[in-house]
């Protein structure tokens, strides 16, 4: 929202440090609305003057050029070639003389254009950096003396403040609104023309007079429609001050009539529209629902086909404007317009929203109607507009004004308890301070029921005791423009804003614990991060979305309004998302990739959904997941020898640690015969990415994780890529951080025995270890496989395994005899159970 500094100054007479636009901007930011930007408007206009075109004729050698004789004042008349097709003889235009500069710093010299000498140039708004209009030369209103500096004629330079309005503060979308926040009650400009105090013709839904009829067909869509009639106007350029104001707020001056409506919009926030009365068939206005398929061409030249949800202004025969959004081309005010009907209405916010959304339009008017206008100030706004037109375009206003629709209900007052103000804010304010905060911005406060507050006696009382003791209630009258204030808490916010969000400093408040227990999932996630980062993996974060099918891995829950096909579904598993990240790294030439991610995956719940408030979302199921992927070398390359690539055994360590240390689960080969309940919670953990020969983590008969090599079909890998391995675990299976109990350590030495054996193929190594433990006492502390060998030297295609066993007693040094008896029991068990042949060395 653009605000002119000069305009605010004119309304309230800014004093002291507020005369610095930056200080004003800071004040607004801290108390009302953030000022995003301050910029100069009309800087660099030195040397550009008002000039009169004495004579204009076509350029002999170019169709689109005009030869002008231009009076720059003080008798200086120059020949100027002008690029605009329409230049009015006798009209006033800005002129920059040879040797002068445009605001952008472009220097103008005399030069020949198609054989004709041109001294300087006539300028458009865009060339003067006053607006975006490049189309034509900027026409100035009659009455200015040639030679007048352009800046002076337009009331420039000015500073434009761009406000980022909060949605509740539409009242700050106009200058009177902003002026109230920084000064006293604003004093609007005296236009110097006749006043207009009409005799009103009222009607519940229809009003007639001044030769026209206004009828509202749907009071829900349009609670009120007021109109004034002006006859005999002369449409032309606006006077400099008016054009300057509009340029300062970034609006384009169009004509004195249209500019008057825009001026009042920016002054009082009331959208207004001027119709060419002669073009209204039947001299009547109807506010009605659009008829399906009915045509309307708007001011911007767009043709629309209407729908009944849209509201239109119509005359007897056709739609002539979108209600509260934009006028129509057929009835717009042109240079030929003589008689006007000025509309000043209020429209239902959601109706305006529907109308403009369907039309694909968003305008200054719709912005304000959607957020709420001051329905109590419409008479004043209409009168301002009429008076401004009379002052700038002449004509005669009909003494009858029309008002269709019931008068707006008065704004109900709000009782505000001073105690409540302090309960919420803690500023320790007295009733008088609350009043003093509110009254400068148009609120009125009188002692309410319970009385007592706001008397002079407790002015500045400050302390909580005074506020509490007063039991004070203030009855607050809300000004009509504050459509956002309806509750006591709304007034509390106003008080906080006005006394400053930094009030009540220097107080202490006690520490408060929370009655809400921490979610255990937070610590579980931390444990996963600790485990995986400790193994050299980096945490990735991605966006929860995936395509419906990523290399054969499918998503389940689709998003009805996705941003793109790549993001058309919610992820159903973490690994496919990580595979995309892996491919991204491949695309950047990274061969060594170690990533993990924690996040949510989405699916549909099995079985009947829940009842009550949860029913809406109960059809869906969310599960917390951890996914990880590794590919490339186990360590960075080193000159001392080549680094090996990650293989299945590295993955088994990561997945095994995850299963064992974090979940209390057991990692088993994927095609193992261990009885496993195949059902998994929520969306499937495994996917097509998991190639045969992987692992499952099993806990209480349930699969809580999977791990394995990534199937080649699930990955678009370059030829230089190393094999990729991945895992995915259900975060719900992760347990809290365990607190291990101390076990006594032994001060006595351990005894080591190595044992080499051959076995028939197919005996799982895990069974050997388990049997060894079963066959021995608790003196056996550690079993470690140190070699696996096969080949010709081994008889009968058997497999050789070599183990180290460590024995240790807590209370004594073991003897050879102790160890030999253990080893012998162990060997016997292995021979019996598996047909192991122990190699005695």
């Amino acid at each position, binding site marked *: 929202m653009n605000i002119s500094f000069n305009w605010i100054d004119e309304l309230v007479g800014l004093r002291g440090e507020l005369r610095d636009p930056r200080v004003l901007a800071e004040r607004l930011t801290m108390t009302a609305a953030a000022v995003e930007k301050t910029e100069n408007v009309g800087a660099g206009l030195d040397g550009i003057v008002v000039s009169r075109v004495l004579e204009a004729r076509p350029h002999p050698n170019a169709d689109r050029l005009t030869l002008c004789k231009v009076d720059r004042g003080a008798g200086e008349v120059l020949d100027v070639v002008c690029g605009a097709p329409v230049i009015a003889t006798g009209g006033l235009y800005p002129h920059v003389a040879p040797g002068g500069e445009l605001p952008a710093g472009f220097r103008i010299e005399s030069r020949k254009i198609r054989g004709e000498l041109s001294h300087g140039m006539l300028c458009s708004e865009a060339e003067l950096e006053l607006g975006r209009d490049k189309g034509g030369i900027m026409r100035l209103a009659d009455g200015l003396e040639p030679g007048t500096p352009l800046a002076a004629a337009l009331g420039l330079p000015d500073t434009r403040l761009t406000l980022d309005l909060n949605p509740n503060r539409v009242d700050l979308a106009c200058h009177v609104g902003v002026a109230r926040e920084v000064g006293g009650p604003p004093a609007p400009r005296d236009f110097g023309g006749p006043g207009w105090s009409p005799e009103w013709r009222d009607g519940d839904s229809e009003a007639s007079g001044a030769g026209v009829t206004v009828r509202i067909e749907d009071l829900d869509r349009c609670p009120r429609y007021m109109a004034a009639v002006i006859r005999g106007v002369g449409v032309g350029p606006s006077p400099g001050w008016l054009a300057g104001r509009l340029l300062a707020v970034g609006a384009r001056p169009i004509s004195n009539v249209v500019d008057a409506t825009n001026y009042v919009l920016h002054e009082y926030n009331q959208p207004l529209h001027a119709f060419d009365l002669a073009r209204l068939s039947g001299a009547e206005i109807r506010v009605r629902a659009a008829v399906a398929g009915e045509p309307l061409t708007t001011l911007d030249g767009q043709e629309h086909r209407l729908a009944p949800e849209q509201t239109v202004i119509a005359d007897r025969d056709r739609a002539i404007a979108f209600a509260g959004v934009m006028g129509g081309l057929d009835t717009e005010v042109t240079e030929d317009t003589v008689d006007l009907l000025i509309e000043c209405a209020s429209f239902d916010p959601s109706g305006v929203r529907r109308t403009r959304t369907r039309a694909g339009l968003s305008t200054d008017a719709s912005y304000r109607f959607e957020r709420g206008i001051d329905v109590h100030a419409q008479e004043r706004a209409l009168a301002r507009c009429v008076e401004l037109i009379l002052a700038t375009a002449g004509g005669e206003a009909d003494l009858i004004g029309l008002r269709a629709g019931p008068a707006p209900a008065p704004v109900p007052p709000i009782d505000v308890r001073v105690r409540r103000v302090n309960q*919420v804010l*803690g500023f320790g304010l007295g009733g008088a301070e609350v009043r003093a905060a509110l009254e400068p911005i148009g609120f009125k406060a009188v002692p309410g029921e319970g009385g007592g507050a706001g008397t002079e006696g407790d002015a500045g009382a400050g302390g909580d005791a005074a506020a509490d003791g007063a039991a004070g209630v203030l009855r607050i009258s809300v000004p009509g423009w504050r459509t956002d204030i309806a509750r006591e808490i709304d007034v509390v916010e106003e008080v906080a804003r006005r006394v400053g969000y930094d009030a009540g400093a220097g107080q202490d408040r006690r520490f408060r614990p929370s*009655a809400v*227990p921490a*979610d255990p999932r937070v610590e579980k996630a931390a444990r996963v991060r600790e485990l995986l980062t400790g193994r050299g993996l980096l945490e990735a974060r991605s966006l929860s979305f995936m395509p419906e099918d990523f290399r054969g891995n499918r998503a389940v829950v689709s*998003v009805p309004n996705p941003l793109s096909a790549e993001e058309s579904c919610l992820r159903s598993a973490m690994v496919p998302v990580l595979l995309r990240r892996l491919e991204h790294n491949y695309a950047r030439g990274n061969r060594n990739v170690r990533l993990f991610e924690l996040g949510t995956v989405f699916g549909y719940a099995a079985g009947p959904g829940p009842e009550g408030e949860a029913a809406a979302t109960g*059809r869906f199921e969310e599960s917390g997941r951890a996914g990880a992927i590794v590919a490339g070398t186990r360590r*960075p390359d080193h000159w001392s020898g080549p680094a090996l690539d990650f293989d299945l055994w590295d993955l088994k360590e990561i997945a095994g640690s995850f299963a064992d240390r974090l979940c209390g689960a057991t990692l088993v080969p994927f095609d193992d015969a261990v009885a496993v309940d195949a059902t998994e919670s929520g969306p499937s953990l495994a996917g097509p990415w998991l190639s045969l020969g992987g692992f499952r983590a099993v806990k209480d008969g349930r699969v809580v994780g999977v791990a394995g090599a990534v199937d080649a079909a699930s990955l678009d890998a370059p030829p230089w890529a190393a094999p990729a391995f991945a895992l995915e675990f259900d975060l719900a299976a992760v347990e809290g951080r365990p607190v291990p109990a101390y076990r006594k350590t032994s001060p006595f030495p351990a005894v080591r025995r190595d044992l080499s054996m051959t076995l028939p193929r197919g005996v799982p190594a895990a069974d050997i270890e388990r049997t060894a433990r079963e066959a021995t006492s608790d003196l056996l502390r550690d079993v470690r496989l140190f070699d696996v060998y096969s080949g010709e030297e081994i008889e009968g295609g058997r497999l050789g395994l070599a183990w180290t066993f460590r024995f240790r007693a807590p209370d004594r040094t073991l003897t050879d005899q102790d160890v030999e008896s253990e080893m012998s029991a162990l060997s016997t068990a292995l021979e019996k159970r598996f047909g192991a042949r122990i190699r005695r060395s």
Partner: protein
Amino acid sequence: MTPAGASLLDRLAAIEGKGLAAIGEATDSAALESARVEYLGRNGQLADVMSLIGTVEARARREVGQRANAVKTVLRGALEERAKALEGASRGPRARIDRTLPARERWVGGVHPVTRVIDEICGIFAELGFTSVLGPEIESTWYNFTALNIPLDHPAADMMDTFYLEKDVVLRTHTSPVQARVMEAFRPPVRVVVPGLAYRRDSFDPSHAPAFEQIEGLAVDEGVDFVEFRAAIEHFVHHFFGQGTKTRFRPSFYPFTEPSAEVDVSCTVCAASGCSTCKRTGWITIMGSGMVDPAVFEAVGYDPERYTGYAFGMGPARIAMVRHGIPDMRLLYEGEMSFLQQFA
């Protein structure tokens, strides 16, 4: 003492002096060895003197012998010490390898920079008694909008472009619905922070992502006021951004807070002198916040006359971008190794 005895004592003194000098001057083991041979060797000077002891008259013999032994001990000690010193000095040069060769490195893992920001934020609020809780990402419009005083047909809804899964089901547009869920489940005092993902239909560009992290905070109890709210936020700012960081609260609007405030901190990148991060204002907006609107308390069944509270929401991704000078939000979500490694 006889001349023979006296002369031997003189020789011993000379051997001691010269021997010590020779040992001290030896700069390598070869020089030291030749000194040893010269003075302590089998045919060395000391042995020479010892062999003459028998020629000394008996009563002086004892003194000369003791003296010779003493010199021998001194020289041996010096020799040993010197040998040690030389060995120490030579150990480097003897095993001189190029120690500028690269170390055998390991892959260093690490958490995502946004995770680090989330953990730190939650940790600082934990000091103030806040517990961390989580909530669902698929949410009903009741929790996401209605319970938070957001009418479905209101311009405020314009601020959030929503992914609808079904008519009444959305991907939550903020972590704020967890406010309502927590208050329904627990009685005050409530103090929680809620990290999690939120979703808006923003196209993926340098400063927007359709899914992004958010941290919601909520504190409700009797007597919680704006002053306490401000103190909590300032505590957080000082601990997260540094003691010298300034904080300012300015008016804002959220349907579920009133008064609402935008919290700005003095720009940490340019020390508030004006840079592109703070758009030359010297301030960076880090959170939206305010006192919980009584309508929210009514929706969850708290007595708004009895309880007051504050709520806030911030974007850890944006904070991570400011903290590390990351120019484009998309970098955070690409999973590129060379990016993530920088923060490990």
